[in-house]
């Protein structure tokens, strides 16, 4: 099935676009979307999503159809997604 992704920097730079469509397996979860994203765009994408120990960066917040799913919360990667869902990735950290 296909989901729609809105990417903010630095992911948008790694993908070369701010909005993309991504093919994932049926009954996919957010973790599968992350995997598909890395599979499509390679290490340029992986280095922004995982730390040097291979753990998902906890400060990524994902908005699934405008509902926030913070990646620092347990079970975030197991949230199910559906066909045509809109998923936004934004780095959670402000600072100014």
């Amino acid at each position, binding site marked *: 099935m296909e989901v729609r992704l809105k990417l*903010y*920097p*630095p992911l948008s*730079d790694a993908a070369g676009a701010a909005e993309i469509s991504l093919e994932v397996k049926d009954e996919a979860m957010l973790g599968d979307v992350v995997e598909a994203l890395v599979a499509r765009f390679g290490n340029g994408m992986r*280095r*922004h*999503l995982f*730390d*040097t*120990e291979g753990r998902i*960066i*906890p*400060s*990524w*917040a994902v*908005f699934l159809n405008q509902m*926030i799913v*913070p990646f*620092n*919360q*347990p079970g975030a990667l197991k949230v199910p997604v559906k066909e045509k869902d809109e998923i*936004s990735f*934004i*780095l*959670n*950290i*402000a*600072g*100014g």
Partner: protein
Amino acid sequence: MAKRKGSYAGKFLRVDLSTGKVEKQDLDLDFAHKYIGGRGFGSRFLYDEVPPEVAPFDPANRLIFTPGALFGTAVPAASRTTATAKSPTTGMHGDGHASGRWGAMLKSAGYDMLILQGAAPKPVYLWVDNEKVEIRDAGSLWGKTTMETHQALQESLRDREVGTLCIGPAGEKKVRLASIFCDGITGTFARTGLGAVMGSKNLKAVATRGTRDIGIADVAAFKKAYQEYLQVISVDPYVPPATKYGTCRFMYHRVKFGIHGAKNWRLGDFDWKPLDPEVFRSDYQIKASSCPMCPVRCRREYRIPAGKYAGTVTKMEWETIARSMTCGVNDPEAAIYFSHLCNQYGLDIEGVGDTIAFAMECYEKGLLNDQDTEGLPLPFGDSDVFMEMTRKIAFREGLGDLLAEGSLRAARKIGKGAEQFAMQVKGSEMSAADPRGMPVRAVSYATSTRGSDHLRSNPYVEELITPEEGLQFFGSAEAADIFHGLQGKGRLLAWSENLVTIGDLLGLCKFAYYRSATLTYLRKKGVELATRFYNACNGTRLSEEEMLEAGERAFNIEKAFNVREGAGREKDIIPERFFKEKLVGTGPSGGAVVDRQKFDLILDEYYGARGWNEKTGLQKKATLERLGLKDIAEDLARRKRLG
């Protein structure tokens, strides 16, 4: 001149502007290693020399400049100097922090601290040329803008490398929202009204030239730390957006959480598209640069190519955009021009933006009328009004004279309940984003020792830790839950305040060291590498715990200063609006208020973590003694201000 090992210059310079007396004092290395530098030196001297009976504009108030301990070395992004004084905005501890070469020049001239006291009988500037220190007439500089002053000094001194500090017209007129500018508009000691303190001393500028080198004690250890710092920077996803957009990048965070605080902190949503960071990058950016040795490169210069502000060139940071939205303005050219005006007049962008927004709401509510405004309507969203009020504040014209006092003082003069629209903490206007929906952020604004401030701590730590890290470091997995967590938040806040204070002791940039995408990277940069850089430069063996304790010590001195001025728990509070009025918006924070019970519980835990009295917010004797501040404990005990 031979290189000295160690990042300290070795002397303090004191100038009495009333008498013209110049004193130089040797730096005691025990003192240096205890208070480190920057905010540590400034806060200690301010506490010792400015008691409660000295008012902010009293000549006896001090204005103290202290470059961070690592400023002048090759440590990346070690480019910050602290300015400290009793604040005319808050009446409490006041400080600001700026980048720019001036601090390095002061150290190269041989001084780790410049203490200014007294007031000159007429406008003067201070010329520090290595050993030579002169008070010179500034009659020809008075009235000039910041950039004009900087350029005039460099021309008259016939040296383009001279570092300068100066005030603009706002500081001369003792506008309580005035700032001090470094090397033209390179850096700004923005907050707490320090430009007005400088103006009250009739001091237009300080020009400095230094030619000595700052050495490094252990070059091999320094190189190793440097390489590891670059490694962390290269993998931290926090960095690329900063490098691409500068601080404008923070817009995206506000958009997704719906925490703009537009129209005087009422709206979470706002038509932000015209202010998209991509717009600034593609249409207006002419230069991307960095502070000395910084690999992040987040500084930006913009130029307006056409229209009524055509030809304007200035630097601009995110808070300018945020404060434009506070005034309901979403015109990118107006935001750039607002930055230009504040930079040239010498104003604090956050204070001025919020104060104008306050006036706009007063006008909307009928608390200010056309007679008060001399016929100038004050609607939200009108960029012309926004600019005109900025100018009027700088020159204290008409309503600007009232607003030049800051929103709280202006509200008290207006009366009729206007105080509820003054969005401030301890008298200093709000900064950063709306805290509704994020209670630890709300408490962080309240506990800041210089009034509302997102840079006094790192309230964003809750957004980047895992529950496991929350449990390990702050005693509860709940610390990682942004919206619903409670336990561990107070401990997280206290730790993050100590953490970022390290940066102000060493002169390290917050964005290069004290913001990150993971706790591992944050601790690595902000504690481990910061400590290793300090030890490598000075041949010391400070532990990471001792460095964090140095941060805690400086924070406690500032707190003690405020306590001595009469502040207790009642001052650690945010505006009532955040408790009572729902944030208007459709984002995750839409409809939220700050839950007062949660706020109080986090504050209780915070005081407990700090070793302060939970009921009064006052410091305990044992806490101050643990930090080596027995004399301050005794002073507070004499004044019956211990917790």
